[in-house]
């Protein structure tokens, strides 16, 4: 009699344990709906952006207003329907690649210092320093470039001061924190037994760093560099203030030049919706978008490789 009652009680207990409380169920459902909605909104925004820019940017050519050959030439003369954007595309590419080349050794060096040489006090100083660099608005970078770097180049190097060199300097400072923070994360992820093994074999600290750490974390470091390059590529305001904005091919350090972003910001407000001039600006935006997508594909590919190696 008593045993039966006992069994009944455990039965109902196990039943109720199997079935969660309706309150908990509701909370679960709410949580799921919330996350689903957020991710779908995000995907929707991204897709509509891509759709919008693609349709706007490609209509220039589909309407036959401007030929592709015209767009990919170097003659920029909108008054006479010559919309050659090649020097701007090259300008964007060259200024961001050069900025990354300047910034990469500096950033990776600082990251090595922070993780390997002086993990305690080095980190304490450099971490907030890079965070502050991230926080400075780009217009401030541009203004400092215009007021300090441009006159400095004009007086000490030559030329007008405006041009590729000033752009590279401003951009390389701007992308430094991106490279530093990604590199720090990568270097910290290198397992400690690699360091210990190397030291046990009698390698010096620099040998360990240069032959093991950098080599094992190379894909991660390169990801940081490409991320920085992508940021430099999309930067408009600071660059526009210091590069001079003349439609020259960007092959001379001290000559004024243009980038895609600077041409778009300079002309967007003054052109009329639907005119060939503004459509060409949309096409440039499309080129920017495609290049950014390319950078992201590159980063994905590199991080995948780094997963394999570890």
């Amino acid at each position: 009699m008593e045993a039966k009652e006992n069994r009944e009680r455990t039965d109902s207990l196990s039943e109720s344990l199997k079935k969660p409380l309706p309150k908990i169920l509701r909370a679960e459902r709410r949580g799921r709906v919330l996350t689903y909605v957020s991710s779908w909104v995000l995907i929707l925004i991204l897709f509509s952006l891509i759709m919008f820019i693609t349709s706007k940017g490609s209509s220039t050519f589909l309407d036959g207003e401007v030929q592709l050959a015209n767009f990919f030439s170097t003659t920029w003369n909108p008054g006479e329907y010559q919309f050659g954007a090649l020097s701007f595309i090259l300008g964007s590419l060259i200024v961001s690649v050069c900025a990354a080349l300047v910034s990469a050794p500096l950033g990776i060096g600082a990251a090595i210092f922070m993780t390997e040489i002086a993990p305690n006090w080095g980190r304490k100083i450099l971490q907030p320093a890079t965070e502050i660099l991230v926080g400075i608005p780009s217009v401030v970078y541009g203004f400092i470039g215009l007021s300090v770097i441009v006159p400095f180049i004009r007086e000490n190097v030559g030329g007008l001061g405006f041009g590729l060199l000033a752009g590279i300097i401003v951009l390389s400072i701007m992308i430094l924190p991106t490279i530093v923070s990604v590199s720090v994360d990568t270097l910290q992820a290198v397992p400690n037994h690699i360091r210990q093994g190397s030291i046990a074999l009698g390698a010096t600290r620099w040998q360990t760093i240069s032959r093991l750490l950098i080599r094992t974390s190379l894909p991660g470091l390169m990801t940081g560099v490409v991320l920085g390059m992508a940021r430099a590529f999309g930067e408009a305001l600071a660059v526009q203030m210091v590069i001079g904005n003349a439609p020259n091919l960007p092959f001379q350090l001290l000559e004024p030049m243009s980038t895609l972003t600077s041409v778009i910001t300079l002309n967007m407000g003054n052109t009329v919706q639907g005119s060939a001039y503004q459509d060409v600006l949309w096409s440039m935006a499309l080129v920017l978008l495609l290049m950014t997508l390319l950078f992201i594909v590159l980063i994905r590919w590199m991080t995948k490789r780094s997963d394999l190696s570890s």
Partner: protein
Amino acid sequence: MFRKGLVLGGVAALLLTVLTGCGKADSSQNADQKLSGNLTAVGSSAMQPVIEESAKEFMAKNPGVQVTVQGGGSGQGLTAAMNDTADIGNSDVFAEEKDKIDPQKVVDHKVFVVGMAPVAHKGVGIDNLTQQQLIDIFTGKVTNWKEVGGADQQIVLVNRPESSGTRATFVKWALNDSKELRKDGGLEEESSGNVRKIVSETPGAIGYLAFSYFDESIKPLKLDGVEPTNENVYTNKWKVWAYQHMYTNKNGKNKELEDAFINYILSPEVQKGLVIKLGYIPVSEMKVERDATGNVAQK
């Protein structure tokens, strides 16, 4: 919505009674207008200071009216007026001069005038150019100031973007539509403020600015001996000037408010006050008239 309107109207009526109570001459004029509603003006950033200041005063005079002034450029102003996305589109060029704008859809109101002049770095050693010399400089035929009688100093051109309204006026009236040189040693700046900064700092630089941007740091150049002053613009002796337009859509939506605001800007109070104070030229003082194709007639 309805209740809000009532409250706004009540406030307006209250303020008006206070105003009439004061017994000023212009308050009785306001009393029979009783304007209320919203008005947006979008476009030319060159015009923005005047429009913004007069909007402030207009709102103070007509409580219940909310005027929003935005920049964005002449192209956006014209587009907004044509598509009726804003009540007023500010533009420093004629609608006829812009591609893809249908002048039939908009009404032109010329509200004031802006004069423009070539400006140079202080160290160039001259203060007068003939128009031919100016054209030679901007087309790249002359590359050193000594060739036009100045110091031995390389010339640096500071342009505005191809789509800029200031540039359009300058090329048309100062350069006689000659194509200015853009490559090799030329700079291009987005705003007049930046042009002034760069011309003042770069040795040998020449650019062009509206009169309202003149200050001690740069040197405005005479053209064929004519000085860039308001008086010379009145008589068209100084040719490089442009009307500043406020375009409205022909459909007449919000017309009462649009007309009231535009008439306020055209009133002597603003023309003789704000417009001159901010460095522009009152349209009421102009002795000549110019149309979209550039024909000049005595008024």
